[in-house]
C-alpha cells in the first residue's frame, strides 16, 4: 500500500540536502563575491537606463523624474513646516488659555479678598464718624 511516511521522509531528506547545499553556498566567499558583482552589473544597467530616460525627457522638454522629485521634496518640507507651525500655534493657544484661566482665578481671588476687607473698612469709618 501507499506509504505516506516514505514519501514524507524522501521529501524531508531532499529539503535537507537542498538547505545544506544552499547554506554552504551562502558561506562561500567566492559565490558571494560573484553574486555581488552580478548585482552591481544589474544596478549599473539600471542607472544607465535611468540616465537615458532623463536625456530623452530633457530633449522632449518634459520634466525628468529627478526634477519632479525635487519639487515634491520641496512640497514635503513645506508641509512639515506648516505642520510644525500648526502644532506651535496649538500649543500657544493652549498656553494663552491656561494664562487666561490663571488670570481670571487670580482676579477672583483678589476680588474675594477685597470683599472680605471692605466690611472692616466700613466699621472703621463708622468708628471715625462717631
Amino acid at each position, binding site marked *: 500500500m*501507499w506509504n505516506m511516511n516514505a514519501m514524507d521522509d524522501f521529501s524531508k531528506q531532499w529539503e535537507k540536502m537542498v538547505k545544506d547545499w544552499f547554506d554552504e553556498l551562502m558561506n562561500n566567499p567566492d559565490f558571494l563575491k560573484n553574486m555581488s558583482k552580478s548585482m552591481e552589473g544589474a544596478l549599473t544597467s539600471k542607472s544607465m537606463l535611468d540616465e537615458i530616460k532623463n536625456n530623452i525627457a530633457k530633449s522632449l522638454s518634459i520634466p525628468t523624474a529627478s526634477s519632479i522629485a525635487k519639487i515634491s521634496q520641496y512640497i514635503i518640507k513645506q508641509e512639515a513646516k506648516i505642520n510644525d507651525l500648526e502644532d506651535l500655534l496649538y500649543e500657544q493657544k493652549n498656553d494663552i488659555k491656561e494664562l487666561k484661566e490663571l488670570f481670571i482665578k487670580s482676579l477672583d481671588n483678589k476680588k474675594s479678598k477685597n470683599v472680605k476687607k471692605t466690611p472692616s473698612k466700613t466699621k472703621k469709618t463708622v468708628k471715625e464718624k462717631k
Partner: protein
Amino acid sequence: MKKEFDISPEQIEEISNKCKNFWEILEKTQFKSLDEKQKAWREIGLAPTLYNTIYTENTAKLNYYIDNDKKSNISPVLIIPSLINKNYTMDLIKDHSMISHLVKNNIPVYIIDWGEPGIEHGDYTLDEMIDGTINRIVKRIFRHSGKKHIHILGQCIGGVISTIYATKYSSQGFIKSMTNITSPVDFSKGGKLTEWTNPKTFNLDKIVNSFKENGAISPQFIHAGFPFLDLNMTFNKYRNLFNLVDNDEFVTLYRALDFWGNDNIPYPCEIFRKFNRDLYQENKLFKGELVIGDQKLNLKDIKIPLFNIMAKHDHVFPKEAALNIPKTKNKADIDKIYEGGHVTILAGLPARFELYKDIENFIKNNE
C-alpha cells in the same frame, strides 16, 4: 515483500483532490489585477478593526482604532510598524488581531501607516523621521486623546525605530513604556542579514544611488532574499498548506499571511543607507555611537520599562540580537521568548493569545 507504492483508487482520488485544492489556493494567491486583489482582501477579511485616520503627512498616516467611543483612562499606545511591510500584521484577521485585543480591553491604539514612499522620499532621512514625523505624530496623539503620555510599541524595524526614539526622547517623561516585538538591537548577532550586508560583498552606496531616481528601494529588491533566509521555513510553508488544505481556518490564515507577506512597500533610500551602514555594518546603536539630529545616542538613556518580545524560531532577526539591551535596568523590564516565528507569534500560532494578554498587562501595569 511489502509493496510500498501500491495505491488504492480511493487514495488516488484523495491525493488528486488534495493536489487540486492545493493548486487552487496557490492560484488564489496570485493576482492579475487590482480588482482581484481587492476581492481577495474582502474574501479573507483582512484588517477587520475599524479606524479613523486623524493625521496625514505626505504618504504617512496616523490611524486611530475605535471601539464604540469607550472612554479610557489609559494612556494611548502608539504602534510603529516595520518599514518594509504594511502594518496590518497587527490586525490581520478576526481572532488574529493584536489591535482588536487591545482595543477591546480599553487601551486606545494609534498606528502609523507609512503608505508607499516614492520619488519624493529620495532625501528623507532617519533623523527627519525620528525628530520630525514621529514627533509630530506624538503631538497629534496628545491633541486627539487629551492625554499627556503614551506607550510605544514597535515591531521588527519599527521596534528599532521605537528604540531610537525612546533613547532620544524618553528622558522628557512623556513615554511611559516601550514594547519591542522581534526587534534587533545588537546587529552583530543579526544572523544571515548581517552576513549578507557585509561591506565586503554588499556595495551599499551603489545600491542606494541606483535607486535614488525612484526615491525608495523597490520592495522586490528587498524581499528577493527573504525566502532564502531559512529554506526549511519556505518548504514548510507549502508542506503545511498541502497537509492542511482541507482545513478552512488554516487556509484563511495562510492566505492572509501570504497576502500580507507579498504586500510590501518601498524603503526610503537614505533611511535604507543609514539603517544598513550605521546599524548592520557598524552596529552603532548598540555601541552608543549612533547620531540622530546632532545627538549621540546612548541606550542607557532608556530608563522606562521595556517589554522585549522575542521569537524562538525567528529566521529574520535571531533572538540573540534582541537580548541584553544595555539600557538602564528597570524593575518592570521583561524579556520573554515565545514559541513561534518572526510573524507567527503575532498573528499565527496559539502563542499569540498569551502574547496579546502579556502586552495588555504590561501596558496596564506601567500606566
